[in-house]
């Protein structure tokens, strides 16, 4: 009897252990954080810098992590990127980890609710050309997980990245060159005719035709028919070489669409964008105009009047026929 009890207890414990493990495995979440999300470095050939990155595991499972560095290229004009993991430019060799116990690409443990500091070192060779290099530093969890053996499943992996923009320059003021590829009113008919009750929204696209990245610093000035001016400050966003970027605005120190907050506009308006590269100025300019008129309500009124006149005319005819 005692033996049966012992067997039962042992069996219950084993079942309990397995169930605890399986349910815990199913409920486990994955959460990674990284800071800083962006690093911009301008440096002379032959110099070196270091930057501390902090990687966080905010999930409820201990992880085995690994890291890699890959070049990226802009993907579209919104600031998205495409990582080119299969490309191995020589500049990748300039970057390493300076941690005593961790190398780039080496696996390391990252316990739940803990963080890992990584010291990234960039050392450029003396003969480095004056040009830009764009990388993404990626940390990924090891998805090899045997908690649910025997089940049809997809294991999940997070790869979290932080972008590095590196510009090699002897002087510290690399040559910049830009082109306004597009500046227009987006929500007006034929980009000119705007309804008075519609907030005008502008699109500004800037192309980098020079050898190094820059930020356009400037604004969009909108002048109303009475001479008043409203200013939308441009958001200092990076435009990388050989790419075009749509530039947003900042309103009350927050990133925002380039849109005028006015509730009613009427008449002829001028909008002028002006900016310089990496410094405030008006080196680059473009001007457009638009006409604001209550087109929609006017159309509705005309239609109503038309229907009314038609109805009156028809009624008049009927009355005339009746007599």
């Amino acid at each position: 009897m005692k033996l049966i009890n012992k067997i039962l207890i042992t069996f219950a414990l084993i079942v309990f252990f397995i169930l605890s493990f399986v349910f815990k495995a199913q409920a486990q979440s994955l959460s990674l954080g990284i800071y800083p999300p962006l690093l911009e470095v301008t440096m002379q050939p032959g110099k070196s810098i270091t930057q501390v990155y902090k990687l966080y595991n905010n999930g409820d499972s201990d992880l085995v992590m690994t890291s890699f560095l890959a070049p990226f290229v802009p993907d579209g004009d919104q600031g998205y990127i495409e990582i080119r993991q299969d490309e191995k430019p020589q500049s990748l060799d300039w970057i390493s980890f300076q941690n005593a116990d961790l190398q780039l690409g080496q696996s390391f443990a990252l316990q739940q609710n803990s963080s890992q500091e990584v010291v990234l070192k960039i050392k450029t060779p003396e003969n480095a050309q004056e040009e830009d290099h764009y990388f993404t530093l990626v940390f990924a969890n090891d998805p090899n997980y045997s908690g649910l053996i025997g089940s049809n499943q997809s294991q999940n992996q997070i790869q979290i990245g932080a972008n590095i923009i590196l510009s090699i320059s002897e002087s510290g003021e690399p040559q910049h060159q830009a082109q306004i590829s597009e500046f227009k009113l987006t929500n007006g008919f034929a980009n000119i005719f705007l309804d008075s009750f519609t907030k005008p929204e502008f699109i500004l696209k800037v192309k980098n035709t020079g050898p190094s990245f820059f930020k356009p610093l400037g604004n969009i000035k909108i002048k109303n028919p009475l001479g008043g001016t409203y200013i939308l400050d441009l958001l200092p966003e990076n435009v990388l070489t050989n790419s075009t970027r749509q530039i947003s605005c900042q309103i009350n120190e927050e990133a925002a669409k380039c849109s005028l907050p006015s509730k009613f506009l009427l008449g002829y308006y001028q909008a002028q964008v002006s900016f310089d590269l990496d410094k405030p100025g008006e080196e680059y300019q473009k001007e457009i105009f638009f006409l604001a008129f209550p087109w929609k309500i006017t159309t509705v009124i005309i239609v109503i009047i038309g229907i009314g006149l038609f109805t009156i005319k028809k009624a008049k005819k009927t009355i005339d026929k009746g007599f």
Partner: protein
Amino acid sequence: MSAIKNKFNFYLTAIISITVIFFLLPSNVKAQSRLESPNYTITWPNLNMGATSSASSSSYNLGVTTGQIAPGLYSSTGYKIRAGFQYIHSIIPFYFKLSTIALNFGTLTLDSLTNEQEITLTVNSGAAGGYQIKVQENDRLTSTTGSYIEDTTCDVTDSCDESDSGTWNQTSTYGFGYTIAGDDVPTDFSGGKFKNFPDEPSENPVKIMGLTPAGGHVAGIGKTAVMTARININNLQPAGTYQNILKFFAIPTY
């Protein structure tokens, strides 16, 4: 002899009790990971930023430089560094969370659209100006014997692949695919349309969430979307356990 037996039983009971209590107790002692007031939220209180070790050269040490450095300093130090986005005054990390470590489909039902698993994706762009989440699979769902569950191509009347979405309403449509709904999800998933996962290395990861300032993104606001992955097989599918790896790429904008 009886005393030894009693002692043995006492120790056995004690060990069993301790083991049971150990498993019944909450498994984790949680560190404080969030500070908040009505005006701010800091999800990572131990920041350790701005230390002199943040940036250095052989001759100089420099903290995180968030603005333009003084003229002339460049020629002395040989570098300029900016960490983070110039227009975001925050040191909150960019973070990404998946609600589960694996999508467990269990035993699959034939000719059925009910073999589905959900996963919640949560992003807080923190100090990043914008973000994108992309997904890719390492391979099709593969059994230990080398059989595959193919990626779905959706219904014949409205087909799909890894980049174009389509409808999946027919139980006679087979394969593995997904749909996603929530914040900052591409519009082609609207109406519950499906795609299949791009396979590495020949197919690039595809965007499933993302927003930039030009699209109306505001830094620091949490975003959530729910992905539903679906498998449907018929009786011709070789028996076995099918597995693969889904890779979620969380990348800030530049």
